[in-house]
């Protein structure tokens, strides 16, 4: 077995040194009859070539996003990732290291996290950010729990533009953790009156920006209304590239920003691993979940970095921890920060403009198709269309024609009336004029 360095002779010598006759003597504590002799139902070891062959056969049964005109977003976006990113994250020293618990030999990871935290804070317009969370949806769930801790209230108000999966995650955590949630009806156009629903028990208002439907609305009035009632504003962002062009939530009064960072540096990967971004105000830092890298000095007075404020975490506080989270998303955070460094401010802003311009071009073209209406008034790179047909059938028919036309809202909101004809459509820098033309042509044929 190519991954196991011990030879049979080594094993014999080691057993002798331990003083046992055979390996199973070391498994003596296993209750009688529970030690298995073999695993009869699984195949035996294979060489690289055979494994590759077997998995490639499976992979061939999927249609890669890159092989079709592709307009799917809804929380995960296909962007071009520079080759240098994937090369660097595969450096052994990044890929095969553990959480930096021994800072003297982990300065690489720690400095990267410090830089990442700074970039995330800048991008969101907040004061501090942590070293990442599992993904955007779990970051959103943790943001709500954090708001409960800060306000000592137990009710979250979720805007109708929140990604349905995110809403579901928050509802699950609330149901089993003993708090309550008020979820507003789907709100494609961003016209609901959230402020009117905030009351004295509300700990936070959770608003996605741009919304699941692509809609952009000013968070400032919502923040003001929340603050007036002693509640916090949690801003959720699923398309981080949007913040290259949009006013950041921090400038509009957000108290916590929970975002999905996949867009920058990370591939689609069928849903994971992704990277949750989490930022807040300095005064709330001790209520923030997750790991934090901080600057300090070493014994020779040289600048260095350590994990800090770790007493908030489960390995010390145990049942009093701010969250049960242990692992973050280090390697995906690394990919995010490398891509962001390669882009820089100038690159990010230009990337955002390309996305926006491509989305406008697509929206204009789709609006001309008979039976299509664009329902999103203001948007970044994603918008919602209403089609004169069942959205799910339309998307399936488009797929048969080789076009990935978006996400039917009914897939995420099954059984809900009023959304069966809605499709969320995303356009990024990967889309060409030909892609858009192919979409328009296919849609004309389908509708």
């Amino acid at each position, binding site marked *: 077995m190519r991954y196991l360095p011990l030879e049979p002779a080594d094993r014999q010598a080691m057993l002798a040194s331990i003083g046992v006759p055979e390996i199973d003597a070391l498994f003596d504590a296993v*209750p009688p009859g529970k030690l298995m002799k073999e695993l009869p139902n699984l195949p035996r070891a294979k060489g690289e070539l055979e494994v590759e062959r077997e998995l490639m056969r499976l*992979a061939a049964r999927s249609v890669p996003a890159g092989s079709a005109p592709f307009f799917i977003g809804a929380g995960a976006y296909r962007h071009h990732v520079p080759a240098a990113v994937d090369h660097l994250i595969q450096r052994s020293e990044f890929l095969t290291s553990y*959480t930096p618990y021994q800072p003297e030999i982990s300065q690489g990871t720690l400095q990267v996290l410090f830089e990442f935290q700074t970039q995330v804070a800048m991008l969101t317009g907040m004061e501090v950010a942590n070293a990442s969370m599992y993904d955007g949806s779990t970051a959103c769930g943790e943001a709500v729990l954090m708001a409960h801790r800060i306000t000592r209230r137990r009710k979250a108000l979720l805007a109708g533009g929140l990604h349905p999966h995110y809403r579901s995650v928050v509802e699950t955590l609330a149901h089993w953790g003993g708090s309550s949630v008020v979820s507003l009806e789907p709100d494609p156009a961003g016209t609901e009156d959230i402020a009117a629903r905030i009351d004295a028990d509300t700990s936070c208002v959770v608003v996605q920006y741009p919304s699941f439907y692509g809609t952009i609305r000013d968070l400032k009035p919502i923040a003001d209304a929340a603050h007036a009632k002693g509640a916090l504003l949690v801003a959720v962002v699923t398309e981080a590239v949007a913040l290259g062009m949009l006013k950041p939530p921090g400038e509009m009064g957000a108290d916590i920003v929970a975002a999905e960072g996949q867009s920058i540096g990370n591939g689609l990967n069928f849903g994971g691993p992704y990277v949750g971004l989490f930022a807040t105000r300095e005064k709330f830092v001790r209520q923030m979940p997750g790991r934090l890298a901080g600057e300090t000095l070493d014994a020779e007075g040289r600048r260095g970095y350590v994990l800090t404020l770790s007493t908030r975490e489960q390995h010390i506080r145990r049942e009093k921890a701010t969250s049960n989270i242990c692992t973050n998303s280090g390697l995906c955070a690394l990919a995010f920060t490398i891509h962001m460094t390669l882009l820089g401010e100038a690159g990010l802003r230009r990337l955002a403009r390309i996305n926006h311009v491509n989305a406008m071009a697509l929206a204009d073209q789709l609006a001309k198709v008979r039976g299509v209406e664009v329902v999103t008034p203001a948007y970044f790179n994603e918008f919602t269309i209403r089609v004169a047909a069942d959205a799910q059938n339309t998307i399936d028919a488009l797929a048969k024609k080789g076009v990935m036309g978006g996400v039917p809202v009914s897939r995420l909101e099954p059984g809900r009336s009023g959304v069966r004809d809605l499709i969320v459509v995303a356009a990024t820098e990967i889309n060409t004029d030909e892609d858009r033309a192919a979409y328009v042509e296919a849609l004309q044929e389908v509708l």
Partner: protein
Amino acid sequence: MAMNTQGRPTTPGASMLDGEVRTFTGNRGLDHEEPLIFERGSLEKTGVDLPEPKAVKPRLGGLERTGAIGLPGLTEPEAMRHYVRLSRKNYAIDSGLYPLGSCTMKHNPRLNEKMARVPGFGDVHPLQPQQTVQGAIALMQMLSGYLLELTGMKAVALSPKAGAHGELCGMIAIKAAHEAAGSKRSVVLVPESAHGTNPATAAFMGYGVRSIPAREDGTVAVEVVRAALGPDVAAIMLTNPNTCGLFEPEVVAIAKAVHEAGAYFYCDGANFNAIVGKVRPGDLGVDAMHINLHKTFSTPHGGGGPGSGPVVFSEALARFAPVPFGIRDGERFRLVEDIGEAERRGLKPFGRLTAFHGQMGMFVRALTYMLSHGADGMRQASEDAVLSANYVRAGLRDLFTQPFGDQPCMHEVLFDDRFLQDTGVTTLDFAKAMIDEGYHPMTVYFPLVVHGAMLIEPTESESKDSLDLFIATLRHLAEAARRGDVERFKQAPRLAPRRRLDETRAAREPKLRWQPDPARRQAAE
């Protein structure tokens, strides 16, 4: 006040300030001082060439960003150098033995990485029409099949993002099962030696934690569990093999007692890697267990994630597993994403834990590992992991002290700090001296129940020569400590990119991000 502390100094002593080598640049040979990107890049510079889009009036609802963001950019050669230099300040499995107990730093095969990047797995969107992602769903189903076969359990939830997330998944399923049965229970039993995530998870769910002491030999006695059980107990959270590296000999009797009391058995599967192919948790009476794909099945730790924590369930809990889950629908595979649909199938999912379907990238890597090893290789890997840990134990048992006596361990061996008594050297000093010898330290001060704990997990990835040198090094250090050669320990590490770092300073005045200039920061405060 409740104290939960160990004698670990957190500021470097003054005596550490000798023996420096000064260079003009601050660099030390291959080890370069590297500034922050904020001190190096500029807002204008970029390493990504993009065409300038045509200027059109934006449709952002008047919410354009106005001021500068402040993000510096680097060209590609500058970025490469920045990150490569930083990478060299990290210890890694690929560069040396990484004996972190309970973390399982085994070799990460590169075929795993290659397969995860195949477009049919890596370049598919989670919300593509399901008929266009059949290969991806099939892979998830295949992985599920392997996990069920290896654990002897009945159902699996793949979506949890890491071990602690898996724990939450398993414990919610348990709460859901009690709720469905109309039984109100308020307490979870957790051994004192448990991972900190266990009580944190129980507390989040609103359960009180009843602590279970270990007996003299470091394991849990069924009588103690029986005494703690009652109609108020919802579950026991037991790690097996436990955090002291020992297989719980009474685990079957414990499971039986727990079930008789109407409670469930949650097994923390962090140490499953010791028994893969040897013992099936399902045969022991486990009701739910998370599996750390990043420990047991070799997906990379990546400097702290991403992890992946699928949970396997017994028959009793299977129907409460969260959405999504895969099913076979004739020739096709399908993901059931909707709770309503699952309920129409007679199931009772407790909800959803994450957007989309879980850590697909980790699923591909773990399955690649399983296919590569096969049944025989996975069994051999477990045996080699256990053999190597016991070999380290045998090599150190005369010099080091074991808290529970000299008995066979599983995949990791635990020592305490009694062998350092009166030497003036602490566990932390000892760990830091290992850094100078070119090793990553073992896990220290965990489990908390053992004073000055040192938990060593060599894994199956080391050759005998590598283990021999490791043992010889630890013996050398132990002898040096006993000889009174204290300075080398107090000064350590001297040869790492940094000397000991001032954690007190970092925590008293947290500096969690770069700031443009100190004057502005002060003004802001």
